């Protein structure tokens, strides 16, 4: 049976389990004098039965769906003669693919290798048996659970406690998705990065100053040295992030200070949401704006002043990224400034300081840790930003701090290496995962420090 149909049948079965157990509990309670003689409400008896019916079966089905393909291919390969055993991972995939295509009829059966033909037949057989088997096992498990749930109904059964325990574990499982995600990210980038570092030494990657990830496909090809020194990428990333910060930090901070300390409630109510529009605009829109409006404008302006500005200059990407981050900085700073106790303001104003002196000498120093935390979060945002740089920054990995030239960033390289055709064994694709690992670690450290600083700061004034 198809998986979707199987699920529907299972759901119907568990609904039946609910109704049957519910009915039985009511029937058992009647001679005793009503449902108040039951340990739990009939609802819980019903739920208990339907959980017994559905949960084990669904877990089994999920496990099967996750692991059916690897198991089937293993059985398939074991059955092949030694002459057909694949020698490398690429061969392995190729072999499985051709058997697959033969089985599905995408590849013509005439003239095919008889060994592969029989393997294809075996594959279809295995799949069919697997499907039948899983249908039978899942349905019998469901029926068994239903029976168990029905039989166990009795006025003494502590059904509510059992149902609530399952409910709580389900909630815990959902909360653990966050841990699983982090673990998944770490494992996936770490695993592929380790494979990359087997081919390219870590020191070459971290301290090399030349980045040209084109690997030679044929040995006699020229110009494809394949060097993986990531320093130019780090320099480019830092350059663009710095330009962005130069725009975003003063503007964000000053507007937060103005809105918090000077603005009338009316002006604040209008200007704040208007600024926050900037935070809601998708990054791809900023990228388009940077590439088609800001970059040509900068180039023309540069020409007017006698400067040569590259059409994919770091300046254009950085400026637009800065604009994107303004609301981020300003809303974080706003939170922090509002957390400074009013008594400190009053004290300073009472001594005769002007408003700006109060801000500069009392509020700003008091809010500084929180502001630093916010800026660190903004830096991590800038480093990880992808679409603006993919669309507006270049691909050439140059070591330069001249904002008018083209630089490339870590995220741009990850995208270029992984979009399009790829083979999973070449250092070229694996390099993207190594860059991803670096990006993940750096942003993780920045976020961790920033969140700690902000939290500590909040506690200080709470």
């Amino acid at each position, binding site marked *: 049976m198809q998986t979707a149909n199987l699920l529907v049948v299972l759901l119907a079965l568990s609904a039946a389990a609910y109704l049957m157990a519910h009915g039985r509990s009511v029937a058992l309670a009647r001679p005793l004098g009503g449902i108040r003689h039951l340990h739990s409400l009939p609802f819980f008896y019903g739920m208990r039965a339907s959980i017994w019916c559905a949960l084990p079966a669904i877990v089994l089905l999920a496990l099967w769906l996750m692991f059916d393909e690897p198991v089937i291919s293993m059985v398939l390969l074991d059955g092949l003669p030694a002459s057909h055993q694949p020698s490398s991972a690429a061969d392995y995939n190729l072999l499985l693919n051709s058997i697959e295509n033969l089985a599905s009829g995408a590849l013509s059966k005439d003239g095919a290798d008889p060994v592969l033909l029989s393997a294809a037949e075996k594959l279809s057989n295995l799949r069919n048996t697997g499907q039948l088997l899983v249908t039978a096992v899942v349905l019998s498990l469901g029926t068994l659970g239903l029976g168990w749930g029905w039989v166990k109904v009795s006025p003494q059964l502590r059904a509510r406690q059992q149902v609530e325990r399952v409910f709580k574990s389900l909630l815990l499982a959902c909360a653990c998705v*966050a841990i699983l995600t982090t673990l998944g990210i770490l494992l996936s980038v770490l695993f592929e990065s380790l494979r990359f570092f087997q081919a390219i030494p870590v020191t070459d990657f971290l301290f090399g100053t030349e980045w040209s990830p084109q690997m030679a496909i044929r040995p006699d090809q020229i110009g494809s040295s394949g060097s993986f020194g990531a320093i130019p990428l780090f320099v480019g990333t830092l350059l663009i992030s710095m330009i962005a910060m130069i725009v975003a930090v003063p503007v964000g901070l000053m507007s937060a200070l103005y*809105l918090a300390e000077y603005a009338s409630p009316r002006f604040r109510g209008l200007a704040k949401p208007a600024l926050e529009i900037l935070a809601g605009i998708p990054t791809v829109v900023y990228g388009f704006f940077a590439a088609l409006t800001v970059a040509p404008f900068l180039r023309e302006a540069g020409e007017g002043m006698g400067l040569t500005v590259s059409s994919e200059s770091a300046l254009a990407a950085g400026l637009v990224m800065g604009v994107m981050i303004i609301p981020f900085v300003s809303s974080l700073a706003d939170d922090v400034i509002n957390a400074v106790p009013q008594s400190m303001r009053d004290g300073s104003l009472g001594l005769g300081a002007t408003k700006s002196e109060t801000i500069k000498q009392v509020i700003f120093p008091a809010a500084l840790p929180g502001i630093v935390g916010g800026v660190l979060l903004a830096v991590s945002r800038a480093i990880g930003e992808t679409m603006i740089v993919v669309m507006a920054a270049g691909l050439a990995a140059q070591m330069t701090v001249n904002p008018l030239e083209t630089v490339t960033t870590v995220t741009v390289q990850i995208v270029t290496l992984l979009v399009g055709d790829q083979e999973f064994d070449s250092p070229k694709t694996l390099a993207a995962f190594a860059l991803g690992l670096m990006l993940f670690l750096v942003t993780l450290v920045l976020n961790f420090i920033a969140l700690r600083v902000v939290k500590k700061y909040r506690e200080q004034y709470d």
Partner: protein
Amino acid sequence: MTESKQSHTAIIQRSLARRYRAEKRFRAYGLMAITFGLLCVALLFTDIISKGYKAFLQTSIQLNITYDADVLGISDLNNKQQVALADFQGLVKKSLQARFPDVTGRKEKRDLVSLVSSGAGYDLRDRLIANPQLLGNTETLWLSADDDIDTYYKSMGDENGAFTGRTSEMRQGWIETLKQDGDIKLGLNRVFFTHGDSREPEQAGIWGAAMGSLFTLIITLSLSFPIGVAAAVYLEEFAPRNRWTDLIEVNINNLAAVPSIIFGLLGLAIFINFFHVPRSVPLVGGLVLTLMTLPTIIISSRASIKAVPPSIREAAIGVGASPMQVVLHHVLPLAMPGMLTGAIIGMAQALGETAPLLMIGMVAFIVDIPGGFTEPATVLPVQIFLWADSPERAFVEKTSAAIMVLLAFLIMMNTLAVVLRKRLERRW
């Protein structure tokens, strides 16, 4: 004594002017910062709108089309293969040559035929299939013009003069003739809203990408909302204060700040390479976006659960409700508006996200409108990215128009969230 006091006052008096100037300056800086921010918003919107509004119009040319069976090479309309192979573009060619009989020479003729979109043949085929008695008859039709002609015609009234970069003087002459006869016009661009992607700007539409976005968002919403709410309920209502709970919290806060492209790497390595989910399908896009929006939804759901006053829980426990009944019957219904608002904001974030979807192959060039969760698709922001990369000039306005559509959706979702919050949220 009096003298020194006077001098102090004098010093303060003298410094006051300077201090007030500093105060004014500081205030002006603040105002300048806000003005800069608002200016950026205004600039962004005017730039996009001024570039894109023309894409909602399309130039079309009126022609007399004769469904000549000889030109088409169709003898029997029921023969599917014959219809599929028929030269419908030839009809356009014939009709254009009849319109401008004095055009000779191979290059000139080719130029003439390319006045009309190369996709016009498909429209004619669909018309003939829908209406078989047209075979052998003539009808007058508006056919969409080629993108170069479209760009030229739209820019004719511009102050800097029309964009003639890709339109020769001869073609300009033909357009002038058509214009004088009233056979060329600007109309509503229906193709843009009903077609999928295409390499020809005049044939390209956003419907395919919009459907892809819809399927992806359905997956994202149906996974991330229940999981996020369940996680929030656990952390707020049931979690004991221990290391494991702390670990979960640190993880959620960190994940909220992890760059989105990292989630793409996760999707590529785990879902595609490990679990062999097909590439480019809304299913895997939805899974990746689920993981990405989960922290947002958990954080906002926790805030709205926290806002439910403890007295409600205590009252429920007091009349004998179990912990699960307290949550399901009282806390969740009261916290629901806040959770829904958080979910809508999370969906808006997912709708605008591009980078992780590039990693999992949703950048493929897909012409067909996706019809399900496991058919290759692309989404609106990725479509924008693809069009922004296309060299044809006409794609610039298409890109801006697609951005306008995307922004309209986002504004709608955010307005909905604000309205929902205002109307349903209770102040305790």
